[in-house]
């Protein structure tokens, strides 16, 4: 072997000296990015979310090549994608169920952060950007759901755009501006398509900031203590391999649904063309909005219902200060764990309430569930931080492994 550098090596160095992109990637997601050695599988969901964003963008761009954003043609163009376009059914089912799986992944990702206290100092800005991504996802999915122009598309769009009519004074003008007419109609569909194409790219920008904000303090870990450099391992190859393994398992679940249960999470009535003269018997949003829809419906006052519905998400921005405990990980907070579990059950109950017609006992359960939701964040978490005695924290990650707590 000669000591001469190969021509490839020279070309690589020439390029890196001008645009050090490989070095940058190596520091971002490679051998120069140190990660705590003790991450469990709950830490896989961030990379899964990135994967789903890519799936949505690729499938969406192809769908857009076959889709017609016009009120008289949109429904038929989607049916044509389903029946006539080569592999169209698969691309659409990947996109349609991809939205659901994207939300499943992101919900687990958020709950992971809430249990292990990943929102606490010094990761508050990281948490905020995550919440902005979540809000942008909700907007994107709502806009996308309108595009096939079925009955639920139309009436979902009608109800949700009317949310803004609750704003005192200017509400009605804002709704007219959103519609571009006297109701949800062709101008609305057109602009929703434009925005549905745009927002995923805004999400990419936010993901970039999210990762940047992650790299400043580094990843949290299941013990919630700061990891010493000796307790860190490089992202490549260790966590790349782990993420790829997690992805392989995840993709099995995703495609089982895409191929065998593609309509299990959808509403049959959305296969009926939009009819502005007939409201479907029972309006329900997609499953990922249900708890918030339940909060909206539980309050018998239009403006207050809207405020509490948006408030239920906005309150998460204050979570780093509402949780007064200095211990991050729920593993060391026995009382917090119980209330965290109760809160999850509460959200699931609200989801069930949002799915059912508002009759009989359902609105009462919705009110209690809404009350508990806010009680948890506004009272229980702040007080718990003072009253609870956390279990002793290990001095380091390696100590926790070598000397298990008695």
């Amino acid at each position, binding site marked *: 072997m000669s000591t001469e550098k190969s021509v490839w090596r020279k070309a690589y160095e020439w390029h890196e000296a001008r645009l050090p992109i490989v070095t940058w990637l190596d520091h971002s997601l490679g051998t120069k990015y140190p990660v705590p050695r003790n991450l469990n599988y709950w830490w896989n969901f961030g990379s899964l979310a990135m994967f789903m964003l890519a799936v949505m963008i690729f499938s969406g761009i192809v769908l857009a090549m076959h889709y017609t954003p016009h009120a008289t043609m949109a429904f038929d163009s989607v049916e044509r994608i389903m029946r006539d376009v080569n592999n169209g059914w698969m691309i659409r089912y990947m996109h349609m169920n991809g939205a659901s799986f994207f939300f499943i992944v992101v919900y687990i990702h958020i709950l992971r952060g809430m249990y292990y206290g990943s929102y606490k100092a010094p990761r508050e800005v990281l948490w905020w950007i995550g919440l902005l991504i979540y809000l942008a996802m909700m907007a994107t999915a709502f806009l996308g759901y309108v595009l096939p122009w079925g009955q639920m598309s139309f009436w979902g769009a009608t109800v949700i755009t009317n949310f803004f*009519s609750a704003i005192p004074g200017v509400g009605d003008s804002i709704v007219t501006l*959103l519609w*571009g007419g006297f*109701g949800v109609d062709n101008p609305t569909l057109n602009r929703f398509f434009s925005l549905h194409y745009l927002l995923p790219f805004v999400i990419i920008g936010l993901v970039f900031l999210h990762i940047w904000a992650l790299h400043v303090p580094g990843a949290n870990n299941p013990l919630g203590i700061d990891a010493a450099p000796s307790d860190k391992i490089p992202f490549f190859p260790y966590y790349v391999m782990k993420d790829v393994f997690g992805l392989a398992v995840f993709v099995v679940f995703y495609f089982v649904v895409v191929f065998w249960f593609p309509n299990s999470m959808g509403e049959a009535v959305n296969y009926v063309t939009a009819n502005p003269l007939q409201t479907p018997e029972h*309006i329900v949003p997609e499953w990922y909005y249900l708890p918030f829809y339940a909060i909206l419906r539980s309050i018998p006052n*239009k403006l207050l219902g809207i405020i509490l519905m948006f408030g239920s998400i906005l309150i998460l921005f204050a979570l780093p200060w509402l949780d007064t405990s200095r211990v991050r990980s729920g593993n060391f907070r026995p009382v917090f764990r119980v209330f965290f579990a109760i809160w999850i059950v509460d959200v699931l109950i609200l989801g069930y309430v949002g799915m059912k017609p*508002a009759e009989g006992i359902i609105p009462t359960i919705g009110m209690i569930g809404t009350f508990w939701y806010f009680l948890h964040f506004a009272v229980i978490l702040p007080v718990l931080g003072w009253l609870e005695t956390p279990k002793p924290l290990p001095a380091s990650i390696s100590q926790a492994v070598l000397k298990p707590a008695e």
Partner: protein
Amino acid sequence: MANTAHVHAADAVGETRRDFLQYTTIAMAGVGGVMMVWPLINSLNPAADTLALSTTDVNISGIGEGQRITVVWRGKPVFIAHRTAAEIDAANKVNVSELRDPQPDSARVKKGKEAFLIVEGSCTHFGCIPQGMKTTEPRGEFGGWFCPCHGSVYDTSGRIRKGPAPENLHIPPYAFTSDTTVRIG
């Protein structure tokens, strides 16, 4: 040294002047930015062809007492109800000051045509179409309309009585052009 002092004095004056220039520049850029963005936003408002007022003429001679029909105006439903004497009575018996959106029945119909109630068929909550146009549909406990979306109940004058909707069913602009026809819009 006199030289330095001179430079300092000039600096101090220059600083405030420069600040002023910077603030005015930023303010002007802001105004310019808003002026540029407004046409973009305003383009989203209803276009001229959408706004071109449409009218709908309806022959009401065929609507029997107690019957209700739906007509389409601007692509959305309008309810026309030929009310029975009992329904008009019920609408008039209400203590107006107790209503959420206080309006006497007389303010919601045309004089001499009190039997005909004409309202937009769009719930003032989030815009669903209330049920009650057919006798087989639920009309709510006040005999008017019932919105299935979140349970708003309207009376025989189309006024909100129960549930989350804040306002009475809106009344479109209309006029009786003859004894048997009404022009909406």
